[in-house]
């Protein structure tokens, strides 16, 4: 993955061909739990898009300037060239995400109460959404540049939101359907998710990530 790769390609690949939910199984818990109504799904989706975009940028900065091998030379001088704090990334990333979510919650509570009631309830849920941490970890593995990381984060968020809203729409239609007893709830949702994943595989010829 070269840093100069087209941002547009990264974005589209993250939304369609490599959808974070349907190909990497990240963010499954809220996907199964909060996809009963389109309105809830839309709110949660928007919150995820926002948080995932910002935290992938933030975590990229933290990783590049503090954690990667030799990254601390700007602070500690040449002696720090062999210093490698990469193993701390799990802890640092999750702290950055949690702190950011808390910060956003406080800010929107002050700025707009309406927005707070629309999005605020979903924010605490987001800290433990695996998709957010997953994007940060994928970004490190793929060695993205700053802009690519943000584009990837944004694309993943949009892809996740798209999947959960589509699922909520489908489940809404299914309310009156006669589902076998054992399949009600999570069972049928997983089958729909599987069919959606199959449908999204249809995109896979368009772009390669």
């Amino acid at each position, binding site marked *: 993955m070269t840093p100069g790769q087209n941002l547009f390609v990264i974005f589209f690949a993250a939304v369609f061909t490599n959808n974070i939910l349907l190909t990497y*199984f990240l963010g499954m818990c809220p996907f199964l739990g909060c996809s009963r109504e389109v309105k809830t799904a839309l709110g949660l989706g928007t919150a995820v898009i926002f948080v995932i975009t910002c935290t992938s940028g933030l975590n990229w900065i933290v990783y590049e300037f503090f954690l990667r091998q030799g990254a601390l030379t700007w602070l500690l001088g040449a002696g720090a060239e062999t210093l490698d704090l990469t193993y701390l990334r799990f802890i640092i990333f999750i702290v950055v995400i949690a702190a950011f979510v808390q910060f956003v919650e406080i800010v929107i509570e002050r700025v707009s109460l309406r927005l707070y009631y629309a999005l605020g309830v979903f924010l605490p849920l987001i800290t433990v959404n*695996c998709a957010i941490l997953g994007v940060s970890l994928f970004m490190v593995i793929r060695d993205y540049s700053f802009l690519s990381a943000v584009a990837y984060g944004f694309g993943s968020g949009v892809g996740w939101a798209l999947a959960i809203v589509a699922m909520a729409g489908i489940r809404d239609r299914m309310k009156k359907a006669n589902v076998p*007893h054992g399949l009600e709830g999570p069972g049928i949702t997983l089958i729909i998710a599987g069919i959606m994943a199959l449908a999204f595989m249809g995109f896979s010829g368009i772009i390669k990530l």
Partner: protein
Amino acid sequence: MANSAVKSQGYATLARGLWEENPIFRQVLGICSTLAVTNYLLNTIIMCAGLTFTLCASCVTVSLLRHYTPVRIRMMVQTLIIASYVIVVDIVIRAQLPEISEQLGPYVGLIITNCIVMGRCESFARSNGPVLSFWDALGNSLGYSAVLLCIAFFRELLGFRTLLGYRVLGDWFTPWTVMMMAPGAFFMLAILVWIARSRDAVEEEKGK
């Protein structure tokens, strides 16, 4: 006497996690990070071992610290405890099994956000002693691992015709490509949930 009572309570807690309150069948929780690696049985075994260690260790730690953790910041404390153990798991896998570590990619790190770990810490370990918490964590992680190993068994068998890398099915069997891909995992899990829940329904009717 007291000792044996504690013991039987421990076994009851263990058994509850294994079947009655199996985290996957009952709550469909925590499938995020582990479902992704179920295309190979070996990867799943490693991943489940990592999860079992993390879950048991963090539940015991949370339980030991339960009187010293302020309620307001308990989530953050739990997350940090879990993350520390996941780092241990990651370093061990990286050192001992570098190839598998490469294949697992970011998923080992994602054990941190696995809802089961947080869920057990929050709903059980926070209000129970360390020994009971250990049994609860062990039961839950074994129940969880059993389901995932079952999924991985069928996915590897039908998708690659192998088990643990050894060829099992001959050329007469056409591999099911869908089992190698993401949808296969969704379908397998749905089928297992279906079976488990239908069995429950039958038992409930018998009970009436």
